[in-house]
């Protein structure tokens, strides 16, 4: 049975004349790994700071395990933060950094030593206790910051883009490490990132934020496969957006005209009318590239091909100039599988793999965002 650990009820935050968060509601379950995902300026860091107590909400309530902590200072909140730039105290050793929170709790010396050593062993830094932060690598500093936060055994750990300063490979390692820590400790993690790949691979649930408003809340799979709107569709993963017009609507199916090709698809969840414009969303891996003489699909030509090891990613221009991204797995049985630039092809997709969204006003940037 899932229990709510932290509840935000109608939380608002205004800086000057800019509303950063507007009456936001969010329930975070006990023990989950939840990620706040959005572009910079979407309010995700502000949301985290409100939880930590570094900022005060201008409206609404924050409840931790049912208790109102909206006005409690950070030092009185049973949650801890891992900062983006680690924020290790430069004048203290690794040991003293990790011990700091326990010293503030006035724990006995013996207990402090045991718990600090345990925390450092957990992040594999047992031998580094006497070092100063500046003698450690970025990844090691990051691990000290995590040890320092979890040694207090918080109910909730807030992580503010903790991996953004690390290089790609180290980042991957730390992602796995963080997941492992979260499982072992059973602490609820609230993770802030603008990296959608990171969000998908690490989280139990993802909150997609834009301009202080939650766009979608769901599992990584829901977010990726069934985006609630165009913003989420474009921000999470790469997307092909085909404008379509509804020609026929029955109880279970619809017929859509996409670039003059008529396809009968499953009826979407949102109400539909004949003659209405819709967006047909296709992930690059949903696209099939066919021979030019195939009996269906949209004609176009290959303008770019990127060998990615396990997949071949290509960019195809349809005859009207629309750009399509396709990502195909290598076919073991076809060693010559490849394209020449300029080669004419036809583009189609696997039936049922499309996702329909109603067309939104101000939807001019769709083509530009495909390759973003």
């Amino acid at each position: 049975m899932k229990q709510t650990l932290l509840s935000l009820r109608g939380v608002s935050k205004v800086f000057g004349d800019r509303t950063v968060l507007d009456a936001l509601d969010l329930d975070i379950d006990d023990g989950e790994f939840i990620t706040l995902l959005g572009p910079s300026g979407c309010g995700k860091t502000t949301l985290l700071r409100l939880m930590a107590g570094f900022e005060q909400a201008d409206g609404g309530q924050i409840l931790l395990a049912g208790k109102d902590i909206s006005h409690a200072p950070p030092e009185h909140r049973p949650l801890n933060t891992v900062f983006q730039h680690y924020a290790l105290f430069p004048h203290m050793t690794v040991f003293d950094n990790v011990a700091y929170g326990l010293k503030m709790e006035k724990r006995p010396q013996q207990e402090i030593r045991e718990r600090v050593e345990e925390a450092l062993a957990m992040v594999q830094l047992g031998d580094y206790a006497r070092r100063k932060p500046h003698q450690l690598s970025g990844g090691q500093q990051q691990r000290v910051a995590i040890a320092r936060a979890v040694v207090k055994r918080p109910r909730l750990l807030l992580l503010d883009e903790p991996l953004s300063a690390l290089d790609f490979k180290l980042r991957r390692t730390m992602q796995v490490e963080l997941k492992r820590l979260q499982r072992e400790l059973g602490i609820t993690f609230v993770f802030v990132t603008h990296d959608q790949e990171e969000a998908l691979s690490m989280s139990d649930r993802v909150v997609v934020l834009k301009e202080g408003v939650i766009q979608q809340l769901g599992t990584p799979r829901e977010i990726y496969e069934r985006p609630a709107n165009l913003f989420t569709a474009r921000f999470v993963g790469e997307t092909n957006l085909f404008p379509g017009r509804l020609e026929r609507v029955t109880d279970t199916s619809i017929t859509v005209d996409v670039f003059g090709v008529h396809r009968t698809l499953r009826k979407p969840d949102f109400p539909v009318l004949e003659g209405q414009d819709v967006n047909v969303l296709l992930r690059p891996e949903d696209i099939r590239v066919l021979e030019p003489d195939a009996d269906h699909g949209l004609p176009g030509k290959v303008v770019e091909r990127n060998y990615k090891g396990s997949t071949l990613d290509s960019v195809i221009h349809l005859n009207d100039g629309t750009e399509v991204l396709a990502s195909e797995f290598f076919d073991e049985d076809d060693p010559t599988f490849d394209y020449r630039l300029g080669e004419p092809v036809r583009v189609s997709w696997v039936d049922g793999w499309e996702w329909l969204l109603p067309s939104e006003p101000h939807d001019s940037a769709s083509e530009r965002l495909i390759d973003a």
Partner: protein
Amino acid sequence: MHRVLQQPFKTAVLLLVWGWLLLLVLTPNLLVVGASLMTRDAGSFLALPLNLDSYRRLLDPLYLEVFLHSLYMAGVTTVFCLLIGYPFAWALSRIGKQRQTLLIFLLIVPFWTNSLVRTYALKLLLATNGLINNALMGLGLIDEPLQLLYTEGAVIIGLVYLLLPFMILPLYSVFEDLRRELLMASHDLGAGKLATFMHVIVPLTLPGVLAGVMLVLLPAMGLFFVADILGGSRNLLVGNVIKNQFLDARDWPFGAAASILLTVAMAVLLFAHRLSRRRLGDEEPAT
């Protein structure tokens, strides 16, 4: 050798700096050391043989007392500068950029006026018939003018007034470097305001405090004209002793020895400052 030719600009700049230091810093200081080891001479000021007499005379109770009293006044000056400068620098680093620029500008404006002139201005304020006394009497708070001028207090006020910017600027610099994230981390880990101040803010601003102390304590002992103008005859600074030896008593070796004493004290403070920087992990002292 070819590297010198490859980087003519770098070489030229380095030569200029080293030349400057050698000619205008090292040479005069060596001359002072030399002078301090020579013998007084009425005609040409300095004469052989070399000896340590001047240093021995520094230990004379009379001069020791002047030195200690001077150190005491400089110490009180430093404490006041710190008490005023620390919160000021802290606030300065926390306000908006525009007001920050204005305040730093105001802090620097007095430097455009000669400090001697500013000390005379202070004298006008503190004099028996001065602005402060007249104002207090006008308000009926006192019946007779207070003895403000020619007191120890007057010298200390003068020193604090002249040296306060030298305390504020290095402190401002360390407060600017103090990352807000560190204070947030401290609160996040359960430390209240006082604990954060003691465990994070004080240790991290210590290099600035030491730099400020260096820039105030030693100059305070040397600013003879402040003691001359505001202190009367009883509140001498080491600077007065040095000046008197050179200009009045014509005892150059002794004056030189006294100034070496100040230089050595400065070196000790510099060393302490360097140590405090090391502790924070800086490879090179920033000041």
